[in-house]
């Protein structure tokens, strides 16, 4: 739990920290799409370059990022291996029953591996340099136009905000309940899978019950403080668009255009 880097915020004052959360949210989603566009080997190199640039500009050391990828590496390698062994095309290097290792398979594998890792790296950059509450503000901004379509935008936003607010509490309470049950002789992490799951009931149930109590009390507090999701609300938290944000989006647009253009070139095009 402690080693999972994805999702943690590291305070700082790098360029990435400075950017508006909307830029980062949009940019991140755009990057994911773009990475699927890449079909040319030069595209792959450009995407890797972009990823490294973004990581450098975040002010966080590379090794922190790679440490963050490590827990996922087995999942990634597993998927990639499946791809390599079960897709065929071009020159065949090895064949045995349903398994084929081919030129196409290998190159495709490389692309898939790259895509996976780059997406993890870039989204990690975003979560490391953006406070969860800022991301929520960005999500709220993009969901707002959906209000006339009866999408409960305000409710979604406040649910996200409150969930974020109480995450540290959940950790604390879990620890407290675990301690209390350990003191009564409960053992965690030992025995068969079934036994281990059963041992979690004395943790989950109290947490769940506490959460229900909390929800009731919060609902009262929200009402007394005048919260009405149907009424217009102002925002104390302000987002400020800067020239760096425009520049960043422009850069991504440029990258996307280059990638699309490269796709139309046949030289060095693998697919």
């Amino acid at each position, binding site marked *: 739990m402690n080693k999972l880097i994805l999702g943690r915020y590291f305070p700082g004052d790098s360029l990435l920290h400075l950017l508006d959360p909307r830029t980062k949210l949009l940019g991140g989603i755009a990057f994911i799409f773009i990475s699927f566009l890449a079909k040319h080997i030069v595209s792959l190199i450009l995407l890797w370059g972009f990823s490294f640039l973004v990581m450098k500009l975040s002010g966080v050391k590379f090794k922190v990022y790679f440490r963050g990828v490590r827990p996922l590496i087995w999942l990634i390698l597993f998927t990639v291996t499946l791809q390599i062994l079960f897709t065929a095309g071009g020159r065949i290097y090895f064949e045995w029953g349903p398994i084929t290792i081919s030129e196409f398979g290998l190159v495709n594998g490389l692309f898939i591996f790259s895509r996976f890792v780059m997406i993890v790296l870039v989204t990690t950059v975003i979560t490391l340099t953006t406070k969860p509450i800022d991301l929520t503000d960005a999500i709220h901004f993009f969901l707002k136009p959906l209000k006339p379509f009866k999408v409960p935008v305000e409710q979604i936003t406040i649910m996200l905000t409150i969930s974020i607010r109480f995450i540290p509490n959940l950790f604390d309470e879990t620890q407290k309940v675990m301690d209390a049950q350990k003191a009564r002789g409960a053992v965690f992490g030992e025995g068969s899978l079934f036994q281990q799951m059963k041992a979690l009931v004395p943790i989950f149930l109290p947490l769940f019950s506490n959460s229900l109590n909390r929800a009731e009390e919060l609902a009262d*507090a929200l009402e007394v403080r005048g*919260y009405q999701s149907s009424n217009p609300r102002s925002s104390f938290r302000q987002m400020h668009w800067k020239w760096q944000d425009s520049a960043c989006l422009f850069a991504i647009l440029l990258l996307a255009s280059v990638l699309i253009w490269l796709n139309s070139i046949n030289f060095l095009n693998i697919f």
Partner: protein
Amino acid sequence: MSRPIIEVKDLTFRYDLREENDTLSSLSFTIHEGEWIAVIGKNGAGKSTLAKLLVGLLQPQSGKIHIDGLELNDSTKWEIRKKIGIVFQNPDNQFIGTTVQDDVAFSLENENIPYREMKERVDWALKLVGMEEFREVDPSRLSGGQKQRVSIAGVLAKKAPILILDEAFVMLDPKSRNELLAFIQQLKRKEGLTVLSITHDMNEAAFSDRILYLKNGKLANSGTPEEIFGLEDLPFHPPFSEQLRRLLKELGRKVPEQYMSEEEMVDWICK
């Protein structure tokens, strides 16, 4: 005497219609602007439902409530909630913002107050409660007492003339409790607040101008702290001087029949 700000007439309420007895039974009282009123009573005497009834979180079976001249009903409750701020028992379960200043601003956002004015009010309120240095701190790093201070700041920022303390200091250690009580007394003088404190803490009740003593949902007694602390049957231990007086009487010594403060007791012994 200043004008009445809370008027309760013949208030009757019960949680569950299947229950035999009313939680509150034909309760009537008036609180004037600028008073500090304590409501005391054993658990189950009905005092815990009073706060919720006053802001329309619960509906009485019968009776009327007027806040600042306005009768409380379904259509006026949101207007009335602007005039009342409640600090509840659990410091965490009413803290909504992800940082101190976000939480103070919450009520103002709900009233759709423009940013500039919000910023001014939030800054002013934080200064008043002594939490300006903590404005960007997240709640998981605050003590219970600090969280309650933030809650009070939220009430001040809202410019609500009425502050209800709903057993607000029960979960704090004695030191924090006393600090906050002294602070609220100062605040009340400075800002002209009306304070309604629902409590089972004798020390808290001692700060009030007048005490309302509830028994089985009815108003059994009302008077100044000196008058109430002399009663035989209290929902808490009386002040030490009174405990000593009663003990000496039990032991057959000649002691004055009425309540004496600590000063008066010391004087009497030294005579």
